[in-house]
């Protein structure tokens, strides 16, 4: 009986483990925050969408090859950006589910800044994580910025690092310095 329960639990955990192995986060826990946000920007671009449009995405130019190379390594781009009118709209507990995923194997925190003041709304958090696949290659990254009135979660999946983002700069109407500040 005990063995059966353990096997059942393990079976249920397989999809979670599998999703964690490709550098993609489950962002569904943020859905309830979206309902409270006064402004929100949500972007979900999966691999099939990227592959179907990549040929027409990059126009010929001096940085086209670099951009194509970066895009070919992308497997998904997921962004959640919320702004709240009230500072108490969310707490650190609301992003605990995201951070818990980032504590699993493969994720490595490369930047962390956490500040807590005296007041209940006097806190903020900035973190950057890189995901390494079993072969040591990059599998994705997460940029997290949480402040009382604003929350941004960026999850880029694929063989990409911060410096690679610069390869897209100036090509898609993207600033030239994307990823420059921390990636180099």
């Amino acid at each position: 009986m005990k063995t059966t329960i353990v096997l059942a639990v393990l079976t249920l955990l397989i999809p979670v483990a599998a999703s964690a192995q490709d550098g993609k986060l489950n962002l569904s826990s943020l859905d309830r925050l979206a309902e409270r946000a006064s402004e929100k920007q949500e972007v979900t671009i999966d691999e099939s969408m990227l592959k179907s449009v990549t040929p027409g995405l990059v126009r010929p130019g001096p940085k086209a090859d670099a951009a194509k190379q970066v895009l070919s390594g992308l497997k998904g781009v997921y962004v959640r950006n919320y702004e709240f009118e009230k500072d108490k709209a969310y707490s650190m507990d609301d992003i605990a589910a995201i951070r818990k995923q980032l504590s699993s194997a493969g994720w490595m925190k490369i930047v962390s800044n956490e500040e807590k003041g005296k007041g209940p709304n006097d806190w903020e958090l900035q973190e950057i994580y890189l995901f390494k696949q079993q072969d040591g290659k990059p599998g994705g990254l997460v940029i997290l910025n949480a402040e009382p009135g604003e929350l941004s979660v960026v999850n880029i999946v694929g063989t990409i690092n911060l410096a690679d983002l610069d390869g897209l700069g100036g090509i898609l109407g993207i600033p030239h310095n994307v990823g420059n500040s921390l990636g180099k």
Partner: protein
Amino acid sequence: MNMDQELRDALQRKQAPPDLADRVLARINNGEAAPASNRGPGSSGVFRWLAAAAVLAIAAGGAETYYTQQQQAAETARVKQELQVALQITNDTLARVQSKLSQPAESSGR
């Protein structure tokens, strides 16, 4: 004679002979059929239907290709726009993180 003139002459409407109807009826009554060599490609009902079907198929294929291309272009534009938004937010978030990291701890006011 130039080609335009030749085409105009070839396509010009010609009046049927006055006894055409009588001759056709007489042949039908006599059970005669027109010689095969006299049949034009458009005179047969089957040919006409086949030609119409071919034209329709080509038109439908062309329309579908055009529609698919338009859809693909719209999808590309949409994804491109979303990618721009995503990377702009990424850039802003990175700048925010860098700004926080570059602030001395004591000047953060916490």
